[in-house]
């Protein structure tokens, strides 16, 4: 009986999470037009630009280096296996397809969720603790529009850019490996890359990065908004934000990829 209770309790918490996330998502989406540069408010756009620097630009070195390393590892591991079948040429395909479909968005999302989900939940959690959110409400300023919407817009813009850049880094790392190990010419490598890249994969990559941006920002904001009590609650919320957003990013990745394959989009080249 106790076990049943615990399982039920855990399930209720998950359902609550999902409900709260959906509610927050729509309330933020409704406010997004206010953040846009021309039709919205200039101050919101300015804070969105600040957020772009915080979420996007400063994550660039980290996600770039992570992508370089992963690209190198992927090429190295696959080359040693494929060489046994005399199929080293496929290393390029593997790196390109692997990065556009999977690793580019995933690595970017993981590095951003580690950096920004925690930062966002800490920032908003502190605002809750110090009554800044209450102050905004009492002043008649919508905290969703003031704090959440600029962050979401910033992530929606910067995450696809970061994803493209880290995918390029990964593909470049593949070249570096092949150039050193088998003296591959850059021109030949680029030709092979151009043959392997499909528009559909790139579109899939961008859609994924938008979904990941949504997950990271909303989990971070929700955990921050939920902070009750003192500063130590902020610490808990940052941990929860990173754990939950990382977990959800990977689950969403699985679901997305499964749909991609079930629709048969993977085989048509």
């Amino acid at each position, binding site marked *: 009986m106790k076990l049943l209770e615990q399982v039920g309790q855990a399930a209720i918490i998950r359902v609550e999470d999902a409900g709260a996330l959906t509610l927050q998502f729509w309330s933020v989406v409704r406010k997004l037009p206010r953040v846009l540069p021309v039709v919205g408010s200039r*101050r919101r756009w300015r804070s969105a630009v600040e957020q772009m620097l915080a979420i996007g630009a400063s994550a660039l070195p980290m996600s770039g280096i992570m992508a370089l390393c992963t690209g190198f590892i992927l090429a190295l591991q696959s080359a040693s296996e494929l060489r046994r079948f005399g199929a080293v040429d496929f290393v390029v395909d593997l790196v390109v397809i692997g990065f556009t479909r999977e690793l580019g968005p995933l690595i970017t999302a993981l590095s951003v969720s580690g950096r920004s989900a925690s930062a966002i939940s800490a920032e908003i959690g502190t605002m809750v*603790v*110090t*009554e*800044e959110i*209450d*102050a905004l*409400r*009492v*002043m*008649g*300023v919508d905290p969703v529009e003031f704090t959440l919407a600029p962050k979401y817009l910033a992530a929606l813009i910067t995450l696809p850019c970061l994803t493209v850049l880290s995918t390029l880094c990964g593909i470049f790392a593949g070249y570096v490996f092949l150039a050193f190990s088998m003296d591959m010419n850059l021109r030949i490598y680029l030709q092979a890359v151009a043959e392997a890249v499909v528009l559909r994969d790139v579109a899939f990559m961008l859609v994924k990065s938008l979904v990941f941006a949504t997950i990271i920002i909303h989990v971070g904001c929700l955990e921050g908004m939920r902070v009750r009590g003192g500063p130590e609650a902020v610490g808990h919320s940052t941990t929860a934000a990173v754990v939950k957003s990382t977990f959800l990013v990977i689950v969403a990745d699985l679901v997305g990829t499964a749909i991609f394959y079930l629709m048969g989009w993977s085989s048509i080249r």
Partner: protein
Amino acid sequence: MTNSGAAKAGDPVISIRGVSMSYGARRVLDRVDLDVHRGEILVLLGGSGSGKSTLLKHVLGLAKPEAGSVTIEGVDITSCSVSELGAVRRRIGVAFQAAALFNSLSVADNVALPLRELTRLAESTIKLTVWMKLIAVGLSDAGSLYPPELSGGMRKRAAVARAMALDPEILIFDEPSAGLDPIVAAGLDELILFLKRSFGMTILVVTHELESAFRIADRIAMLYQGRLVAVDRKEEFTRNVHPRIRQFLERQPDAAPVVAVEEFMTSYLRGSNNDY
């Protein structure tokens, strides 16, 4: 400040009627009735856990009561529309306990925030208004500083300046002297009295500091376990015989916890209870 025609000293600006609230099984507010009259300073006294913060949340429209109503300037904020609530909130300035200043903005920008967000005033007008508010609270030379660079008392003053930005008729202070040394706290009390004298504001102060309460209050209300046990002019309030008020005024501790601690300590020292 008196822009509504019917405004005269004495009529209720905030009127709380039968407000009840509970969290789970715990009753936090139990049918609270309270009026704040125009131009007075009402101090809401209460110990920790007495429900005074919860009552404040209801007055600000941050929480909805289970029963009862809160009427501010003739508008029932428990049942009005969002835009009406916004209009009422414009007439209220709130200085929060933790000041609630935005750390990324300078003091002047913090004070300017409500003006920039809610009005279409020209930037030069906003600058002038901000400067006047900062002078009123005695921070005229701190406008360019950032909140983390301020002392506790300065931060509270900055919060007051921001609360006054839109020229509200009602000012609400949550624990104005919490965490301040006596001299700075006294300075803040003087500021509250000054605001009432010179702007005729209606002021509601929520606090547990007796000294400060008696210095500034016209009337004192006392909450205990979610119930309003007394509302009186401060002169009469000191003569109130309600045991809880006597205890509060004479600063007597609750008997039970002290005894429990003593028992625990003696048994602990005897070594009979070392598994704690």
